[in-house]
């Protein structure tokens, strides 16, 4: 059954971008061994390669939609929406997503805690004459907090389920955004289905993935992300962050209004969409909004930092 491949690929795709205290050294090592495989589109990571266009599609369409709602129809043409934006890809791995965003014109920075990932990503990008606006950093994401640079878009794909302290990781991503900036996350839900596919089947039964690669308890449900951002408020403007936030009040309002149900956040504040693999066509698709059970395994999440 090919589904097991999906699971395996997803599991092997272990990023290491957690906060300094929570980086799991063995995950980084395991991942580094695999990094030469990153760009073999038919190898270990084929499912990520196939998933990538769908992630970019979601990012593009979301930015377009917001821009149209704010600036009206003339806003921007569909290929130029990312042009000139400062984008950060946290846990960039071999650079699959970073390269695509850079090709769409975003000033892209990929950051990853695995040195060999970053080396592979740099080498691969150097072969492509069209990736002038792409750079990579080998460091944990937290180190960026020390610099005043903030981003229009922060992405972190398939990372959250591997970090030991998700709350601290989410705060880091959130703080790296400019006011009005966009955060995109993709991860796996903690549901019987995802347990079955990713742990029971892949690790315990098929043994395609070494046992313990994934910890069920680390999986994050969409409603938990929503709840987190119903409580989360951007820190008051202090120290290095003061550049753009100067003059704002002490504590801004939460990113998602606390009255909304965690299962149905206000559309303009956040969105959750399922990513579903169709084994017949060997393609990922973005599930329609509100599709039943679509977010029970892989999903992608968008939220916007308030101004």
């Amino acid at each position: 059954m090919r589904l097991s491949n999906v699971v395996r690929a997803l599991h092997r795709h272990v990023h290491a971008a957690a906060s300094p205290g929570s980086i799991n050294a063995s995950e980084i090592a395991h991942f580094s061994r695999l990094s030469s495989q990153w760009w073999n589109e038919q190898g270990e990571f084929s499912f990520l390669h196939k998933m990538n266009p769908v992630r970019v599609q979601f990012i593009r369409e979301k930015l377009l939609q917001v821009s149209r709602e704010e600036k009206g129809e003339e806003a921007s043409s569909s290929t130029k929406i990312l042009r000139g934006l400062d984008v950060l890809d946290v846990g960039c791995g071999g650079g699959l997503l970073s390269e695509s965003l850079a090709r769409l014109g975003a000033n892209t920075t990929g950051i990853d805690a695995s040195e060999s990932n970053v080396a592979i990503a740099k080498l691969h990008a150097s072969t492509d004459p069209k990736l002038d606006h792409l750079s990579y950093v080998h460091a944990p994401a937290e180190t960026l907090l020390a610099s005043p640079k903030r981003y229009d878009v922060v992405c972190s794909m398939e990372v959250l389920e591997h970090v030991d302290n998700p709350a601290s990781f989410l705060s880091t991503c959130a703080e790296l955004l400019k006011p009005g900036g966009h955060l995109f996350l993709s991860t796996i839900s903690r549901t019987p289905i995802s347990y079955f596919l990713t742990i029971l089947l892949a690790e315990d039964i098929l043994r395609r993935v070494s046992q313990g690669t994934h910890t069920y308890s680390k999986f994050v449900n969409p409603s938990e992300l929503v709840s987190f951002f119903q409580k989360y408020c951007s820190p008051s403007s202090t120290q290095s962050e003061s550049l753009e936030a100067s003059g704002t009040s002490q504590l801004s309002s939460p990113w998602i209004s606390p009255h909304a149900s965690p299962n149905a956040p206000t559309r303009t504040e956040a969105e959750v969409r399922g990513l579903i693999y169709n084994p017949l066509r060997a393609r990922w698709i973005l599930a329609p909004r509100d599709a039943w059970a679509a977010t029970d395994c892989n999903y992608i999440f968008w939220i916007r930092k308030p101004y």
Partner: protein
Amino acid sequence: MLFSLAPTTSKSCRAALVNCHKLSLCRPRRELSSAAHEECDVVIVGGGPAGLTLASALGSSQISSQNLRVTLVEGGDLSKVRQWSPPPGSFSNRVSSLTNASQALLKDIGAWSHVDTQRTAPVEEMQVWDGVSDARVTFSASEIGLARPQEGMARITENLNLQRGLLRHLEQLPSVQLVEKTKVESIQRDAEERGGWPLVHLDNGKVLRARLLVGADGFNSPVRSYAQIPSFGWSYDTQGIVATMVHPPRGAFQSPNTTAYQRFLPTGPIAFLPLSPTTSSLVWSTRPHIASALTASEPAVLASMINAAFRLPELSLRYLYDRILEAHAKGTPLTHAEIQQEILWREQSHAIDPNSAYASAVVKTAEDAGIPPADSESVPPLVASLQPGTVASFPLRFNHTETYIGEGHGARTVLVGDAAHTVHPLAGQGLNLGLGDVECLARCIENAVLQGGDVGSYTALMPYAQERYLHNHALMGAMDKLHKLYTTTFEPVVWARSVGVEVLNESDSLKAALMMTAGSQDHKVDRSAFGWNLAAKGFEGLAAGASAAKFLSGGVTGMIATGLQGLFKAASANAAKGN
């Protein structure tokens, strides 16, 4: 990357920026491109119909043209095509029946308006019959549920007219660079640390480094060899004779010359494709020795034989071939008067009424023709002469590559058109398959650009192969089987099992092949229906299995004729369902 300069609001400044951007694309970039390498996003090898259409499609797509630098390399001199201006009333001998899907593509990309449609003719009706049993199917545009029946099922178009239109269109598309009279000498793989991209060495000394290398380079595709994509196939023991035929116009009591005819003979099908009221194109597939004797005969003799081949019983045709071969071998080819005499004699022996449309030995003048015979429209108009210099013949082969996308060391390559497949030209379908490839590939490239993808990557190209490979294979298989159904001399039982059964399974493709119009609907319609067709086929398969069993119990001798009749029935039933 793109538009790296500071944004500006002034329109003129923006125009200047666009120009800079174009220039910067042309310069070798960054340290990795040694001075000799020119960086290209898409290199198309081959300026045949497939390559030119792809270049036009990419150049006219806003998304692709703003983001991709496209270079087309053609070994031949395209200025001859550009300046092609045939005298009025004369037509090139290489024509294709462009399906509505192909025309829709050409319209979408803006090339169709550069094609001289005065020189094309719609096919409003099609008559296909079995040369042995005389089972016949008639398809007409108004009956098969087309969205726009008045536009016909297909349009007979000279390949040169199409190519010239595409070249004119390309002149308006600055994002496409045409490099002509330049051959690809060799293709090498760039160093591993530079990603192993294909390096295309031209005979003018230039080297193009290709993000994506497209092989639109025909049957002997150098791109296919570079990518080491295996191709399997065989040559039919068959030649295709082409010629431009001149005939009197259809009379006042007849429908205009918009019917295509195809008769399946044991030596191969003969097709009559209308080009104008008084001109039509011939595609006659037959045994090589017959073809060489026919093409060596004087054109008037060939014209008589064409008339006979659409009319006389199969037995008599064999007799006529023998006469021609005999005379050819002796070095005393038959004269026109002699062959007409032979034909008259055969007609008399079959008791064919001299007033019937099936009689061709006695040429009737317009005056004494009067009211045409009742059967006049079941055969094409009588050919009076062949346009000088248009008789040619070429070998027919069946070839299909194992895949359309290069992998591993051949990565970043993709094949379209004849480079990927050559088919039996049951009435000029090869070109349509190629244009279908181009439509799909251009769409996949555009999608990849839209999502920031690398257009040379396997991920970007995979959907192309997924969509086209089986589609082409089914259609090619159907054409191949139609050919074999009549021409094979293998053990009949084995053959019936392997061919007859599958043939029924593929009745959709067969219908398309029979009608010479796979894709008489336009491509958008086709695509959305694709999944359902596949699903429906599974069920059809079951039904076909049942009838195949009956088929086999019917005895071997009658099977060949029964087989084709069955097919015709299946096809017309399908056609009646209205697609």
